[in-house]
């Protein structure tokens, strides 16, 4: 009985997944390859965490394939991927997250980045959050009296540039308007999107993952 119910559950999941996949920026083949890669990465996981990437695995992917190094940003990316906030990335979150991460439209990516930078999730990037994000961005001069002065200066510059409604913090609307004006500001507070050539390479590499003979292949 359990197995029947389980099967029904799985089938329902599959159907949902299939529907989701149709909404992504990937082709069917690419989806298949990405699913395959996901399975490959999670194949040794314990049963309880089966089909899920945990924090370290996620960091590993970002580090090795996208050359990201900032732990804080990577944690923030994890949160952006992890829609159900269970500290793990499941398959559907993986596919949908990657769709935005790798191929998202400008609008999607602006939202995505904003989510990443909005550390406390209150819908605004405050000065404190900016300071936090930028605090390691300058090389510390040993002879400077106040090592944080430069960072504060940068925060001021950013506020001046992006806080369009002048309320001392950056809302999503502010952010969208600023990026529209100057596309370079999309990743204003730290790199949270892959370099284009790495994004392409990632999808291509997914094709070369040894075929995991699981039931997901039967989906198509």
């Amino acid at each position, binding site marked *: 009985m359990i197995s029947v119910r389980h099967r029904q559950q799985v089938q329902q999941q599959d159907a949902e997944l299939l529907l989701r996949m149709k909404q992504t920026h990937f082709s069917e083949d690419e989806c298949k390859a990405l699913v395959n890669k996901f399975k490959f990465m999670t194949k040794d996981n314990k049963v309880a965490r089966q089909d899920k990437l945990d924090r370290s695995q996620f960091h590993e992917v970002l580090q090795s394939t996208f050359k990201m190094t900032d732990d804080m940003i990577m944690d923030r990316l994890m949160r952006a991927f992890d829609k159900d906030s269970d500290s793990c990335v499941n398959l559907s979150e993986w596919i949908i997250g990657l769709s935005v991460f790798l191929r998202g439209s400008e609008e999607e990516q602006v939202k995505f980045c904003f989510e990443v930078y909005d550390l406390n999730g209150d819908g605004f990037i405050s000065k404190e959050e900016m300071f936090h994000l930028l605090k*390691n961005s300058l090389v510390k001069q040993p002879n400077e009296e106040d090592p944080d002065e*430069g960072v504060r*200066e*940068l925060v001021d510059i950013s506020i001046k*540039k992006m806080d369009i409604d002048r309320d001392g913090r950056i809302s999503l609307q502010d952010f969208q308007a600023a990026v529209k004006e100057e596309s370079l500001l999309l990743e204003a507070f730290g790199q949270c999107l892959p370099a284009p050539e790495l994004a392409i390479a990632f999808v291509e590499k997914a094709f070369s993952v040894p075929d995991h003979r699981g039931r997901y292949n039967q989906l198509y």
Partner: protein
Amino acid sequence: MATRMRFRKWYTMGQTLTRAAQWTSVSEGGRGRLEFSPVNEALINSTIKYVEGFSSKHPAETAIVFKSPLQWKTTLEPSTFGSGYEISDDSVTSKAKDKNDQPLLTLRKLGELNYDIKVYCFNQLSNVLKIAGDMKMREARSILEANPDPTAKMLGDGFATIEGEDNSTLRLLEQTKKESGDEGDELESKLRLLLLIQQFDMQLMNQSLKHISQEVRLTPQQINSEVALLKRYCGADSGSVLEKISFTTDYVFDNGCRAPPWRQVHGDICCLNILPLDGEELSVTANTAGVYINKGIEGESNDQSYERVGDIYKDLVALLKTKSPKFAEIIESKEFELKEDQKEEHFEASDDEIDGDMTERGFEEKKEDKKTEKISKQTTKRKKCATVARTNATLNWKNEEMNRQSREKKDKDKKERSEKRLSRQTIDRKQKTPALLEDEFYSDSSSESEEEEDTPDRRQEQNSDLPSEYWQIQKLVKYLKGGNQTATIIALCAMRDFNLGQETCQLAIRDVGGLEVLINLLETGEIKCMIGSLKILKEISKNTQIRKAIADLGGLQTMVDILKSSSKDLKCLAAETIANVAKFRRARRTVRQHGGIKKLVSLLDCAPLGSMPMTDEFEKDVEVARCGALALWSCSKSTRNKLAIRKAGGIPLLARLLKSPHEDMLIPVVGSLQECASEASYRLAIRTEGMIEDLVKNLNTENQELQMHCASAIFKCAEEKETRDLVRFYGGLDPLVVLLNNSDNKELLAAATGAIWKCAMSSENVERFQELKAIEMLVALLNDQPEEVLVNVVGALGECAAQEPSNRSVIRKTNGIPSLVNLLTGTNQALLVNVTKAVGACATEQDNMGIIDRLDGVRLLWSLLKNQNPEVQASAAWAICPCIENAKDAGEMVRSFVGGLELIVSLLKSDNKEVLASVCAAIANIAKDEENLAVITDHGVVPMLAKLASTTDDRLRQHLADAIARCCMWGNNRVAFGENGAVAPLVRYLKSPDSTVHRATADALFQLSRDPDNCITMHESGVVKLLVGMVGSDDQELQVAAAGCIRNIRRLALANEKARYSKT
């Protein structure tokens, strides 16, 4: 100056010294004399000492017998010669003899106190000098004057001083090797002699160098540096030497001078106002000959008077020392001892600079022939001496100032850079011989001048008030330097918020070292940073100084590399920035040398427009192509780049882009094409690739810039007839005429009128222009237009009038003739060529001629014969022909020009074929009037024409034969032509393929054949057979002349026979 410095061969001893001796001008004929100057005195003194000491120091060499004797006129009396000589009344011979028993010294009497002396060896030479005693100086001088190149005499002609490298030593060495034995020994000592002489030469050179260097002329650079130096010591405080020093004008001409052009002719460099600490303000002129006080601004008129007051000084310091005692006092107290090492360092640096630059330039200007190069190198050398001397004079001062200011590295850099620039400028200027200038003019079709390369470097003064932007930018650059990617991007974005079009911001970025960082970012590979950096560079590179700085920092190389990046945004930005930077020649060359042209051309390669739907992707491709075209447009201003674009396959790609409907795309594409159309290969390609149709189509756009480029492309392409036909075929003439209404945009007007001019070279096009009433519109444009427009308008009118007689009366009726005649007084050479042509074309009509005559147009034309430019001379002479033909009472008119006939005859000495042909044609017309013919005969026209007879140029032959035929009509000119050998070459003209030559020649031969001697010459040259053929020609005139000539020859033969029979 009555005497000039002459750089002539003098005294074997070689190259350098030779030029040092100062000769009086020899151009007046006769031998040069050594000028009486301190330099020469010193030279002669050392020479005497050397010769006297020679026999004791080098006994073997003194005995060598010279190849040919040193011979000169002496005032020594035979009686003064002592033992060892056989003395008679009027001759002296030495007892010492050579192998052939020839005395080694002979003295012959020529007249009272006037003897001719020959000396065969150094031994005797030193004897002579000893005997001369007090007269040594005089004797040595006459030896040197009589023997300008003694080595040649001593060792044979093979050792004459040659300008350039001297191989004589090597040659002698080789000879020594080849021959052995006695002769070998002799040669060996000869070699030693030569080496000794050369050694002495060096010695003399070093000695005289000091003198020479003081006499070299001033250059604008020297003045500038001196003024700059003095400026640092201006002000009211205790350390200053002057109250104020300034140039009267700020404008600097291309050659570095500030004086107005009419003063530059006199050698003036600039005028200065100097206010010394004591006394009144001085108005000073710096001339190439030195600096002097001028009269300054006179009275109420505010006019500068350039007249010299007082002495000329070698530099400003010398002048000020005498004029201002206080200045002298302070300057004296400022003098420090020279620091040797520093001096050397300084010179070495400048040396390297010059050499490096020379080679680079040499590479660039391969066309330049070796001779000019050598000369320019020599002048460089000379100038270098000058710089050495000059810096010598003021260097101690500079050192002092260096001590005073703390030697910040930055400061030093600045100085070095300005020095570098200075030396480059000097080289540039020196290289610009007239020939070269022309070369440059033609090789660079660039509509933009190169002057921007010389724009003065305006650096912000450290102490002046800096705008607030400066500090903000400085802070941002700090973040750029010390930030990670994120901070860099924020800083870049913030920097873009400044008004980058504003010069203060542009220069601020440079001055705080921002350019280095920005260019550095391009090499990081971080796409976002690169994009941000390029966005800024693109904006600020609109400034000429920034361009240069970017090129200096190697930014072009990096940007060329970026062109092959995979990011289209990057490619676009890089290409656009290159388009901005490559506005000067050095940058264009850099782009080419790093393979940039090929990469730029490959950017053009996007799918044909309209072949696929306009997706975002495709739109980006088009944008990339546009930016590529933009960069190529900038690059295409250099000839070699044009070539490179063609080689990289750019033409078909441009042709494809030309079909684009977007003006943004069309402007750079047509711009590049019109720039390249100066090359014949492009013109052919533009025609054959069907681009004329598109160009014509785009003449109808709304955008004036595009219209301008299209018209300008047609202007350049319509040199070829096929192209002109195509323009008509595609209906391009109508829009061109419509463009004439657009009189506000002068550039457009110039391009349109240019296109009309060139198109009017085909008579079918002229017809169309007539229908469109273009002539009337052109005449209306004759007034109040800039010269570029006038040149083309007049050119077009000239073509129209020349090809279609009815246009001549149209020009008259629209009142164009007075305007045209008025333009004859201009100075623009291109304009003059066209105006004379147009006036000439108009003069072919009687009524027009009446007006021209009334306006004194012929006199103006005639005065243009004096113009320097052979093209103007020729076209003026051509224009004179119809004037004489059609003027009433032409003979009287011509005679009324004082010196006119002499002038035109003297033009027969020209070496320009076109000038000769035109002058011959004019002379043929002048000679129609008997009185004038008599005058030109007196001016020696006959031998001059006869001299030209050997030409092979058919055009010249035709007019020459015409002129000869006409000139035969006076006196015994026929005989004179025969005597001057003009007849036989004329016969050869009959073999020319050109029938017009035949007619003129037959006519000339007919005229000449009235002299029996000429008949004989002709007959001997085989004229009869050729003429018999011509009698059968269709051309009646030719028939008549040929037959007449044969008749004359035959008559002579008959008379001859008759005479013979009657004798027997």
